[in-house]
């Protein structure tokens, strides 16, 4: 009986935990999606100058205001877990294998992984 009571309490705590987490997640995703929608609206209202090459070349202060380059995605995704690996450290073929590994391990979106791979292969070693 004691065991059953203890189990029920644990289950209740678990359900409560999942519910709270789900609410927090929903709020965050709603906030994030809203922020992105606003950013895209702002972009469409901008003049063409906002999409100029100069703007592409410099990292934007607000990442949500334009499509990110491979270099920017590299800085966003890779440096948060490990120190920077230089493009010259691996060959183009090795980078392809490594990025497949990192796409799986770090759960990177396919399109972003491809941009990062292209960026690394451009200056890769021989």
């Amino acid at each position, binding site marked *: 009986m*004691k*065991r059953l009571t*203890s*189990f029920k309490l*644990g289950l209740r705590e*678990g359900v409560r*935990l*999942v519910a709270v*987490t789900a609410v*927090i*997640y929903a709020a*965050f*995703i709603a906030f*994030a*999606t809203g*922020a*992105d*929608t606003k*950013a*895209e609206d702002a972009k469409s209202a901008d003049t063409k100058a906002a999409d100029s090459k100069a703007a592409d070349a410099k*990292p934007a*202060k*607000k*990442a*949500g*205001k*334009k*499509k*990110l380059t491979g270099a*920017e*995605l590299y*800085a*966003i*995704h890779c*440096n*948060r*877990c*490990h*120190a*920077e*690996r*230089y493009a010259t450290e*691996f060959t183009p*073929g*090795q980078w*392809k*294998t*490594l990025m*497949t*590994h990192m*796409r*799986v*391990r*770090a*759960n*990177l*979106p*396919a*399109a*972003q992984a491809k941009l990062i791979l292209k960026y690394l292969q451009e200056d890769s070693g021989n």
Partner: protein
Amino acid sequence: MKIHSLILGILAAGCVIGFTLTPRAGAVVNDEDFSSLKDLVTKQGRRIDQLEQTHEQDQKTHEQDQQQIQQLKQQLGETHAVATNATQKAEEVARVQSAYPVVSGAMSAMHNFTMVGDAEVQFGKAAGQHGSFVLADFAPIFLFRASDNVLFEAGFDVTLQNGSQPGGGSATHVDLSFAQLDYLFNDYVTVVAGDMVLPLGTYSERAAGWLNKIPDDPFSRDFLPGSGVGVQLRGAIPVGQSGQMVTYSVYGVNGPSSIDTNGIAGNLDLGGNVGDTGNWHANPSGGGRIGWFYPWQAHYDLELGVSGQTGVWDNAGRRSWSAGVLDAALHISPYFEAKGEYIYTMQETDDMGTIHPQGWWVQAGYKLAGLNLEIPRISNVELVSRYDTMHDALGTKTDRATVGFVYYISNTLLFEGDYEFLHSRGPNALPSNAFVLQLSYGL
């Protein structure tokens, strides 16, 4: 008449003088010049003989070269003919075998093979004990890309560790950390099969020695399995174009088992549901993680995740084991990061009812390069600290505060050091304070 006679006389005298003096002068030139001229002519003759010999040898060499060139031309022609025939035959075979899939982007096997991983050497000293080099670890990860969509990866851990033998001494271990096949099904789904690193929190997927800034693992990670044998679906869904994404992982694995078949509390074996032939019990475990990553600028991001696993663990299949993990990571600038996990498990037992081993840890680091001191050695230092706590629900509680540093010798070679303030009580209490030094290299 007199004048003519005088002229004739003078001429006659001149002739006499000339005939008298001329033979003397001619005798001097012939003795010296003739001998030197003779030597010169002799030398020139020898030189000409040598040149003629050399010329003859060159002619012979040239003839031999011409013969060899002709032979090579013939061989090249024969090789070309063989290659042409082989190509034709290969094309004919390919036409016959076209029903079989051909690996895209066919390249040599070694071209698709890459090795990464890490290596560590560790020195430790606990209070009241002698210090020693306690660990040498080489942990390669072998990656083989069979095609654009298929990757096989396996991680090994070769360690030499002190204190792992009863009564002292060191022992060498070779362990398989994971061995999995990844199939990129589409942009949003990857199928993983094999012995997989489990996505319970993020620590085990990012715990290599050169990634983890503190040499020791948080105690509470012992409540979770590091890997499991089974199948997993995972992927990421980008939200907008800012790098934001939602990630997911869903898996089924053999799950935990009992060391002694029964449901006694201390007998839980987290990755042990593998019997002599089939599994010890028939109920695999299921789990997964969902995460949200929000970068608002490069090096400024927040990641949150919730994950869990549940299943039974005793042989009779009556006792369940479940775990839930909350994880978070924050980066503010390239210099500051904070991350942590809360781990809560629930284990039904035969002897203690339902117990709840649990713990949490939080860690922060700051790179001194952010101070812009422009002092190279200082700028290579990152200060780190962590607080972790665990309660095993069997009477032992442990709290640990850790302070330390990371010195970046290069981007992949790290020298780490930390001091751990340990407070542990209970039947399985851990030793006292210790400091650890570690040299880590990322392959």
